[in-house]
């Protein structure tokens, strides 16, 4: 920890000596602006302006709707931090999520000499490139999901997927009353986050809820259509199925299948993410619970944490910042969302 800090000071010093021409700007901007935090954000920027303009790279993904609020968080942070002489570049690492895309994007961001990087590393093995950035004096903040091995990032914000899975397990326990059959539809076999969400739930159920029987695990490659077919097949083979647990993309396909078979209220879906299509089926009752992890807040906060660290060397209290897992159910949906937020969302 202390090593990083010294490096950080060095960077600041070199920044100091190198930007004498910009003192004017700094002087005029001496007054710290008073900007309100946007709704859904949690962390304020420190009341201090940087010595020189700062550039933060925000490396994220955009292969399914989950990432929209993340992007919105980043863009809100961009707008917010613009007042602090800091730019946030929202960069999508690639069209498919793989570990080497993370490495490639990190490498490029290092080459582009950003002052700090916020990244969604997702995969094991990305710790090496994160450490490399840190060694070169670029602080890194990871969020949403990271690999299982520790890296020298200043902190990780998110909910580890295994814990989220356990929460799903508890939810399933509640719904079923501890007895009955459940089927699992996971996104892609072997995708770390999907596996952890699946195992979190299944391990919890196996240890604590002996009355639950898992009838099968199938992959839907994040496709709603495949979830639809799989759900129909599962209900054919197990007419007494109680819950379909969808770990990743396309849960509304499973919900639609339940609706089409007229089984609303008898079978329900437990899934992730509060995207409009999911919320619709929460409202109509096929989705019993959808777990979300505050994606907007994570997108926003990670940028501000980086800013605070860059200008004031201020670190979060812990290097793990858990986010709140919101569970939306047919009972609480009207409290959490107004209907036009999801009925006409396009």
């Amino acid at each position, binding site marked *: 920890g202390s090593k990083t800090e010294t490096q950080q000071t060095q960077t600041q010093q070199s920044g100091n000596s190198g930007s004498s021409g910009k003192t004017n700007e700094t002087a005029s901007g001496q007054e710290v602006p008073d900007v309100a935090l946007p709704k859904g954000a949690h962390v304020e920027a420190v009341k201090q302006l940087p010595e020189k303009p700062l550039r933060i790279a925000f490396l994220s993904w*955009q*292969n*399914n*709707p989950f*990432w*929209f609020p993340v992007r919105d968080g980043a863009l809100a942070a961009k707008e917010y931090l613009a007042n602090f002489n800091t730019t946030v570049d929202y960069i999508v690492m690639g069209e498919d999520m793989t570990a080497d895309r993370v490495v490639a994007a990190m490498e490029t961001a290092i080459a582009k000499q950003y002052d700090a990087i916020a990244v969604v590393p997702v995969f094991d093995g990305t710790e090496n490139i994160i450490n490399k950035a840190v060694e070169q004096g670029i602080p890194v903040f990871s969020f949403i999901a990271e690999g299982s091995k520790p890296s020298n990032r200043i902190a990780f914000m998110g909910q580890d997927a295994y814990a989220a899975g356990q929460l799903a397990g508890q939810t399933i326990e509640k719904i079923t009353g501890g007895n009955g059959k459940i089927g699992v539809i996971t996104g892609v*076999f072997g995708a770390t986050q999907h596996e952890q969400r699946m195992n979190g739930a299944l391990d919890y159920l196996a240890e604590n809820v002996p009355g639950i029987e898992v*009838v*099968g*695990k*199938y*992959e839907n*490659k*994040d*496709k*709603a*259509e495949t979830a*639809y*077919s*799989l759900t*129909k*097949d*599962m209900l*054919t*083979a197990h007419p007494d199925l109680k819950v379909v647990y969808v770990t990743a993309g*396309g849960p*509304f*396909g499973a919900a*639609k299948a339940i609706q*089409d078979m007229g089984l609303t209220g008898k079978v329900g879906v437990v899934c992730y993410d509060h*995207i*409009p*299509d999911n919320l*619709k089926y929460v409202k109509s009752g096929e989705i019993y619970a959808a777990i979300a992890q505050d994606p907007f807040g994570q997108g926003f906060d990670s940028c501000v944490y980086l800013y605070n660290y860059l200008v004031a060397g201020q670190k979060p209290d812990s290097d793990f910042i858990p986010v709140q897992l919101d569970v939306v159910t047919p009972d609480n949906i009207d409290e959490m969302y107004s209907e036009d937020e999801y009925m006409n*969302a*396009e």
Partner: protein
Amino acid sequence: MLSINQAETSLQKKSKGNLLSKLAKSKEFSVLVALFVLCLVVSLLSPYFLKMQNIFNVLRQISVIGILAVGEALIIITGGIDLSVGSVLGFMGVMTALLAKLHLPPVIIFFAAIIIGSAVSTISGLLTTKIKINPFIVTLGMMSIAKGFSLLITGGMPISIENNITYLGSGYIGPVPVPVIIMFIVAAIGHIFASRTLPGRNIYAVGNNERAAKLSGIRVDRVKIMVFSIMGALCALSGMILSGTLKTAEPTAGSGYEMDVIAAVVIGGASLSGGEGSIIGVIIGAAIMGVLRNSFVLLGVSAYWQVVAIGVVTIGAVALDSLKTKRD
């Protein structure tokens, strides 16, 4: 070494014994046997398999792949390939949703979508014939482009469809899902087209020997463009079905379907070097994949073994034919 497309040949056979023995030798037949064996095994292991509801489920599940495979077969018979079917399907789902937003009557949406779909794939056809770019590259590129536009148009979010056009995907006639009926109609028309019409036969001629076709006065470029246009229309049809089933158009719907579709075509007896293949075989090929996936759920096959099983059955279904040919 010479593999023969016997389905077409057997059409015109006079003697019945001959027909049967030819049938037994045909590639379709071995695939049919593979399908039959698979069904037998699954039905012995699960009492649910032969329930009418399940059979219709399976048929509905293969309908999209089946319809696309008919078009893909035509392209592959000419010696081409189309990797963009999945993403053009997704794109057409999005277009359908946009048209539905205009509150147009379903019939208009239907024809408009067919025309747009055709137009999109015709571009691929034009690039392969007029600029002579390898169809693999053209359609690989088109796959990205169509997907990119779907994402740009929707901003990446699914769009829900409130229009009767969704009947194509979610309707039933009696107990039979509408997509199943559409698949059988497409297959029947495709079969007659390929085996009984002049443009259909020209497709085989082009794939068999392009030079010979050209020297015989067939306008080879037109034939190639035509099959792409047909493919585009079928992508549009499948796009309407898929988005209709869920009443939602997902921009990434259909991605990755190209492999399933091409596998169905090749399992069904077509050769990737062109000139051979039959529409009936293609539907059987799609059915094998459908039954297999269905059986995973019915039998509760453990997760990762499912992945292994898909590979083994894919190879096995085709090996049957090769082994038979070798023995002959």
